[in-house]
């Protein structure tokens, strides 16, 4: 969720800078790949350091120029005003002029607005003869220019990518990342390499995944419903870890089993597959009738010890399910 908050903050500038932010989403994505800050990356190379120094110099220069220009303007204003005062007319300040020319237009004080009044009178409503405020006019011209450039840039010159190009770029990028991950060995579990595990920790992790994703169709106790019963010894798509892993990973779209590879990572799929295998033989409240072929469970290589453990577990669970009153009697 922290990530979300961070991204929410990122959205604000996207919103503000509008079309300039077109690529913000991809930039943000690249950042995730390379968490190093830009400056750190630059500091690594000779040229980069040089660039940074030049950049800093340029910033200082710009600041200096701003200060100088404002000083000059002030001086010019003083001189001009002096001249104006000499002529007996007070010249408006630079900012006042700027405001009148580019922002508000010449606004008369409210008391003097009578001069601006047109001879219109509609049920007592009068109208004044001010023009369109300059700032609004420039916004209008600006948006008009945007439109004039946007449409050809999009439709003719492909400067703004069309949606298919954008999509293909996203897919390509994802494929690259997948490759990087594969090289790093992060996604190495496949149906071939999936391991049968009976570790409590694995089963517990698998159970959590099962409850969140599988229980609605296969029932919380594995007895089946929309999907087949998982507690019996009948199998449709393979009874070993390889078969279950494949079924979960690829799904069986023809029968309504969703492929989970887009939702769960391979480790999670392996965990939940192991949990599914551990369900066999457990009691179910409303078992669905068997589907597929009978394939009795191979004898567990780990032998009797586990069987006993499992049996005890089952008894414990069964007891838990009893109504409270019966438990007390015991």
């Amino acid at each position, binding site marked *: 969720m922290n990530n979300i908050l961070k991204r*929410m903050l990122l959205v604000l500038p*996207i919103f503000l800078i509008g079309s300039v932010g077109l690529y913000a989403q991809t930039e943000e994505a690249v950042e995730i790949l390379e968490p190093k800050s830009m400056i750190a990356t630059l500091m690594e190379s000779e040229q980069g350091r040089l660039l940074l120094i030049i950049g800093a110099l340029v910033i200082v220069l710009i600041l200096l120029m701003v200060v100088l220009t404002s000083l000059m303007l002030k001086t010019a204003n003083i001189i001009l005003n002096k001249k104006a005062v000499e002529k007996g007319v007070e010249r408006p300040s630079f900012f006042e002029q700027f405001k009148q020319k580019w922002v508000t237009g010449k606004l008369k004080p*409210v008391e003097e607005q009578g001069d601006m009044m047109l001879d219109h009178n509609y049920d007592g409503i009068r109208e004044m003869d001010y023009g369109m*405020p300059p700032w609004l006019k420039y916004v*209008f011209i600006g948006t008009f220019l945007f439109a004039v450039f946007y449409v050809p840039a*999009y439709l003719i010159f492909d400067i703004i990518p069309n*949606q298919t190009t954008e999509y293909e770029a996203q897919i390509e990028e*994802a494929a690259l990342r997948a490759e990087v*991950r594969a090289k790093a060995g992060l996604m190495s579990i496949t149906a071939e390499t999936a391991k049968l595990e009976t570790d409590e920790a694995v089963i517990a992790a698998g159970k959590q995944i099962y409850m969140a994703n599988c229980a609605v169709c296969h029932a919380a106790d594995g007895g089946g419903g929309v999907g087949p019963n998982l507690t019996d010894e009948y199998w449709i798509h393979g009874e070993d870890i390889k078969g279950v892993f494949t079924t979960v990973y690829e799904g069986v779209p023809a029968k309504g089993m969703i492929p989970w590879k887009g*939702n769960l990572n391979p480790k999670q799929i392996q965990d939940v597959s192991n949990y599914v295998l551990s369900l066999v033989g457990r009691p179910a409240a409303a078992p669905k009738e068997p589907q597929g072929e009978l394939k009795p469970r191979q004898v567990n290589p780990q032998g009797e010890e586990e069987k006993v453990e499992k049996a005890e577990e089952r008894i414990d669970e069964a007891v838990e399910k009893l109504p409270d009153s019966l438990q007390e009697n015991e």
Partner: protein
Amino acid sequence: MGIEKFHYDNKVVKYFSIATVVWGAIGMLVGLLVATQLFLPEANLGSQYTTYGRIRPLHTNAVIFAFVGNAIFAGVYYSMQRLLKTRMFNDTLSWINFWGWQLIIVAAVITLPMGFTSSKEYAELEWPIDIAIALIWVVFGINMIGTILRRRERHMYVAIWFYIASFVTVAVLHIVNSFALPVSFMKSYSAFAGVQDALVQWWYGHNAVAFFLTTPYLGLMYYFLPKAANRPIYSYKLSIVHFWALIFLYIWAGPHHLLYTSLPEWAQALGTAFSIMLIAPSWGGMVNGLLTLRGAWDKVREDAILKFMVVAITAYGMAVFEGPMLSLKNVSAIAHYTDWIVAHVHIGALGWNGFLTFGMLYWMIPKMWQTKLFSNKLANTHFWLGTLGILFYALPMYVSAITQSLMWKEFTADGLLAYPNFLSTTLQIIPMYMLRAFGGLLYLSGVFVMVYNLMKTAKQGTFLANEAAEAPALEKIQSKAKEYWHHVWERKPIFFTILTTVAILLGGIFELIPSFLLKNKDVTSIASVQPYTPLELEGRDIYISEGCVGCHSQMIRPFRDETERYGEYSKAGEFVYDHPFLWGSKRTGPDLHRIGEKYPDSWHFNHMYDPRSMAPGSIMPPYPWLISETYDLAGIPAKIRVMQKLGVPYPEGFDEEAEANALAQAKGIVSNLKADGIESLPEQKIVALIAYLQRMGTDIKMEVSENK
């Protein structure tokens, strides 16, 4: 020439005002009900007639056409008589306008909860009501034009320009978008299909906002604001520029509702470009309004009426800036389908339309009852309740929109969706839905304060049904040497109306016609796309009737997160037989375009009967009536015949086989369900719906897998 004496008709204004308040309260109450259902589905009262999908359109229609519609009529009838110095053209027409409009609203209140809907947003009403709307609207138009022609004021004031543009454009929009072939008394199929239908619908939908919620209200603002503030309009020239620019540019912007969809990209690009160009013309109204208050700001501090108007204009200014920003495709990528759009329209509806209406009523009613407002204090209370209501409504919606959108788009380091389960993103924003409903409650309580205040006001005054007025009769114009060019137009109403019509038609012509011409070349190229089977068609009608489109889109955009979550992105050619299109505009639930064959039939059965059995915590309401009710098998052939007329290539004489065909398919589903332990009958509505759901988006699936 002598002074003529005449009377203004206040009585019809009074009736429209009362209707505004009554329907407003009802519409907002329904809004509160649907808002509550989003975090408490049980608030549908367990009845199909009060379930979200059916009453959300009731809320939007009631607020737009009943509340705002009546307010427009009230304000127009009040201001037009005074601006033109004449009584309305014809009292009978005024009353036909009033009663006709109320009957239409009553018809909407009855038919929408019953599930009679065309599914087109803000145009849900079925064809007989559509015809009635057209007729009554024309009556209003005749009455208006007649009044203008009988005026005693030589020139038309800017408010009148906006009224004319609104009348002409709404008529054009409504008639074109309602083109449909009736199947039966309360059922029709849109004449357009798929992409074309989407384009027409959003050309309509966007401009309904423009010419029903915006331009008439700008007209009202131009009358009531200077009246209430007693200040002159800031700039006549600005009025001219922003009026013409606004009506000309607005009509082009519709496609911005369809960015990143299967709509051809040239139309999308135009939609964006024209939306951006709309900023200044839209702001023109705000600027002219706010600058009119120059010299009256001291009054704003005390006068509740002006406060309402200032917030209305500010809300308008914010909404018309936000709109163009949302039309940028990178912003739309985040905001579309989320609550952002809901927040955006409510800034407009609650802030601009609501507050301007309240200001207008507070000003107009004491005038007509020849008294003062009963309590300025209560009006101020209303103002603060309303303002807080808007804030509590909009802010949580922005938070929920951005939260959910980013959750949809987030990938884990493993390259998987971070929130593959759509529901987890919904559950995250439930608290925001609660806050939003609270905001709505505040706003509505303010309305009740107003109702009390206005009733007391009316009680303490005496109503003046016919207000005496006098004005010199219109003289023949002596040729004046110099008259401002636009001022000349203002005294030629017919010429003015024709120019307006040309301005608003251009955008429509340039966007709609090419897309129809391209129909055969571009769109129908996917060979594997076949018409719906009779049972699927029936199921689709159930989907339409239940208003599923209110929460579920059927348009997967070409983004990796969407194709990962839902499947291959939607192609234009897949919708050629979709009369009407059902792309939707909001994802309260997941997109359904590729839902077909994803889950077993029994999943859908269980899910429709009790969504929480298959998706724990789901906020979707249960649909038990789909199981207890049957569809009309015998009605299917007529539907096939209408579809054939609309160009859907069913083989000739297929209508005769339709029933048998539907029954056979239904039996297949019944036996699938039986295999999973569910008993059902082939004529249950649920069976038809499952047929449709399982078909959706599957035509192209095969082709894609074959290509691989």
